[in-house]
């Protein structure tokens, strides 16, 4: 007598579990991508806000400096709105420390420099005090502003400078 045993095998539990685990790992690998995208979006938002704070510093400094060129010596300044005048206007005040808590999280410095030009070529060679082959350009000033903030424990900054000519 011929005895034939046919075995029909399905998956065993361990195989099914392994496949589920692999599937889960693939599915959950999407999480870091989403998290990264959300974080990236957050960063660009801060940077956008920081650029507006930076622009404010540069624009106000330009307007004040060009209005009264000789009045403001080189140095660090803070901006504020002078409400003692009618109508109110921008004003710069000399300071040592940066402006804190601008738009809640930002700090900003504004520095005004006199620049040096090469006596022969007139090329801008750096900031005062000038060396032997250059002289101070009294009709040009450099406004430099730096905005810093802390994001998730990391210090970040954006900076800009504007060369202003008084002619």
């Amino acid at each position, binding site marked *: 007598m011929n005895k034939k045993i046919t075995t*029909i095998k399905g998956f065993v539990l361990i195989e099914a*579990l392994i496949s589920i685990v692999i599937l889960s790992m693939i*599915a959950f690998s999407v999480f870091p991508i989403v998290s990264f995208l959300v974080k990236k979006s957050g960063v660009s938002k801060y940077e956008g806000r920081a650029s507006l704070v930076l*622009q*404010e510093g540069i624009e106000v400094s330009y307007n004040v400096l060009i*209005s*009264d060129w000789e009045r403001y010596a080189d140095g660090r300044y803070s901006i504020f709105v002078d409400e003692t005048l009618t109508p109110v206007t921008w004003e710069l005040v000399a300071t040592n420390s940066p402006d804190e808590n601008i738009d809640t999280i930002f700090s900003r410095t504004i520095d005004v420099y006199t620049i040096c030009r090469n*006596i022969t070529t007139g090329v801008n060679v750096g900031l005062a005090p000038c060396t032997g082959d250059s002289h101070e350009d009294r009709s040009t000033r450099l406004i430099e502003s730096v905005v810093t903030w802390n994001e998730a424990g990391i210090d970040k900054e954006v900076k800009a400078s504007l060369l202003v000519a008084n002619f």
Partner: protein
Amino acid sequence: MNKKINYQGFTLIELIIGVLITTFIFLGASALILTLFGTSGRVQKSQSLDQAKNDIQVELTNNIKWAKILLIEPDSITADGVIYKFESDGRLYKNGIPMTSGEIFLKNVYITDLSRTRVSGEELISLKVTLDLESKRSSNISDHLNLVVSQRRTKIEIGGDIISPTRTPTPTPSPSVTPRPTRTPTPTPDPNATPRPTRTPTPTPDPNATPRPTRTPSIEY
């Protein structure tokens, strides 16, 4: 012939465990998908706000900065004939054409003139434009714009005539606006400020040096 078939599939308990695990996974996955869609929608609306904010910033900055004639009103700015008007429908219009999307509502718009008058009497405008942007579809998605722009001083000499930027007189000046008082040049340095380093005197130019060519006035950036 005696044929014996041995079926080795899942037992009931294995199937139940499998179904339970699959259920949990599907629940987790559906929550993830819902979050993804929700985040995607929020990001999209947030990006629309950012885009609008950026458009307003770039447009106003470029045109106010280099305008020769500026006219400021509470809800509009006219720069060299280009009219930017914040309408009551919450949109910004440029010469009557909407600049911002209909899905974004601009509110609490304040245009403040904080210009300083030059010692020479010439006035260069410096504006502060503040406004709130809100998504019409979801009011909890909002943003704030605080934009400061200063008009640049340009002087072009054509045949001996000097053309400088001017401000057109406001047609109906506010009665509360009084002429700007003249300032006395009295700097008010911070008492805590560190003294500036002594500058080296300007060196005497070398008499043998080649004379510098006459430079035309220019603005450097």
